[in-house]
């Protein structure tokens, strides 16, 4: 009975999605969204694994401070950070630009990604990664780091995607209303009365991370297979 209640609670928000058949469309908002997601996911994977590696291998008395500083955005309300970013980016003329939006999205996603990568590396253990140091860099990354961290990479990708797709205020503020994404469009649609249009955008918001997660997972599995096939 308890399980049934939990199941109903989980499915309840989605029940409205099936009240009418959605029709799909393709416009600049979707293109912007997919590009943003792909860029942010790539940067997150690259920077988080690099930073986690550095944290794992660096011995310094400043270590605790550096960790605290890196994870600081996790403890500060996103909106407070957003206003700070707005002022900073405005000085560089990046407000209202795609690069400005990408930077701010990176700021809100990266601490989580670093945390994930660092935790995964800590569990696998420094000695295991040290064995990889005896191999040339290409082999180290391709044959050891990438397959060992493939699950983490997929999680970072999903988390970054979901965070990016969840940002409305941030993209509106830094994008100065000029950068259109599925999320920003969705809020406008919700403000109106067109249920079918709202449904289309909601489906998009659900499908984009799902498709990307499956695609990235498939890509990673294929990559690991290729790597193992070379051995």
């Amino acid at each position, binding site marked *: 009975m308890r399980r049934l209640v939990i199941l109903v609670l989980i499915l309840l928000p989605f029940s409205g999605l099936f009240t009418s058949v959605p029709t799909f469309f393709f416009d600049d908002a979707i293109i912007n969204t997919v590009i943003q997601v792909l860029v942010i996911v790539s940067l997150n994977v690259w920077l988080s694994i690099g930073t986690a590696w550095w944290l794992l291998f660096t*011995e310094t008395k400043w270590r605790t401070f550096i960790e605290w500083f890196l994870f600081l955005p996790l403890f500060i309300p996103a909106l407070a950070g957003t206003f700070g970013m707005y002022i900073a980016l405005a000085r560089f003329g990046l407000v209202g630009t795609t690069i400005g939006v990408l930077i701010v999205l990176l700021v809100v996603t990266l601490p989580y990604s670093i945390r994930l990568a660092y935790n995964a590396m800590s569990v696998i253990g420094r000695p295991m990664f040290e064995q990889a140091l*005896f191999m040339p860099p290409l082999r180290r990354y391709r044959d050891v780091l990438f397959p*060992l961290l493939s699950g983490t990479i997929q999680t970072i990708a999903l988390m970054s995607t979901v965070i990016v797709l969840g940002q409305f205020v941030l993209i509106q503020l830094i994008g100065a209303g000029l950068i259109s994404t599925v999320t920003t469009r969705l809020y406008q649609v919700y403000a109106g009365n067109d249920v079918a249009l709202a449904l289309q955008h909601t489906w998009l918001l659900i499908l984009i991370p799902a498709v990307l997660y499956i695609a990235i997972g498939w890509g990673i599995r294929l990559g690991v297979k290729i790597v193992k096939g070379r051995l």
Partner: protein
Amino acid sequence: MGLQLTNIQKRFTKRDVLTGVDLFVKQGEIHALVGTSGSGKSTLLRIIAGLESPDTGTVTWDERSLLGVPAHERKITMLSQTPLLFPHLTVGENVVLATPDRSREQAEKWLTRVRLAGRYDDEVHTLSGGEGQRASFARALAADPRLILLDEPFTNLDPDLKYELQQLTRDIVSELDLTTLLVTHDREEAMLVADRVTLLENGTIHTTGTPRELSETEPTFGDFIRLEGELYPLTRIGVFSEGAGERVELVRHLVKFGVRLGEYRRPNGEYVILPSDVSQQIGQSYPLRKK
């Protein structure tokens, strides 16, 4: 020719781990670095491997500095206490990964050499502790190193397996004429495996010598017997022919036997019996027999 460490100093946050260490490992020799926990032996090994940098001092191989040379360019491999095989690869793939030309034949050759023939396609988690360590050893050898570093690789093994792996390691590195630096806290193990032994105490070199030299000069250096003119650590007590007749000369007080025990089980399962009904004294000889 070989590895030369000069005036190596290393300080971690609040304490000096190594203070002016000088060490020379001749090419082709098996050199043991013996010290208690915290004496700095593993740190020294990590400095040689390129996993740590010394605060001062030099590390050279054939008079060419290794400082600043990344670990993968030093032609050095390292075996740790645990196998550290990559879990996403099979046993054989772990070894292939280390071979310079990614050769499956080479990997299978090394696996056979460490008595793991036919285990190429096995998953890493199916290996026992000793097998894992042997696979790890095969991987280290497959990289064609000029120096192999052994960081207490036998510590977590049961006595029989430990002895077997010690022998295997000794045989293979001798056969390959591979320079080997073994770090251990077990003095007996050092005596069994190494050509020369260095004692490290509180981050400084205490003494260096052959097992025979150390057994005669170092009061703390283990329990040894002289059997037919040769000096052996206790674990090497052997019965070389059937029946009684061999005599052992006690070189040091037999701590393990004391006067309480008269028999000792050798790693190969044989029993060696020393007389327990007499007070054992250094310099005296006693008959040795099989159980």
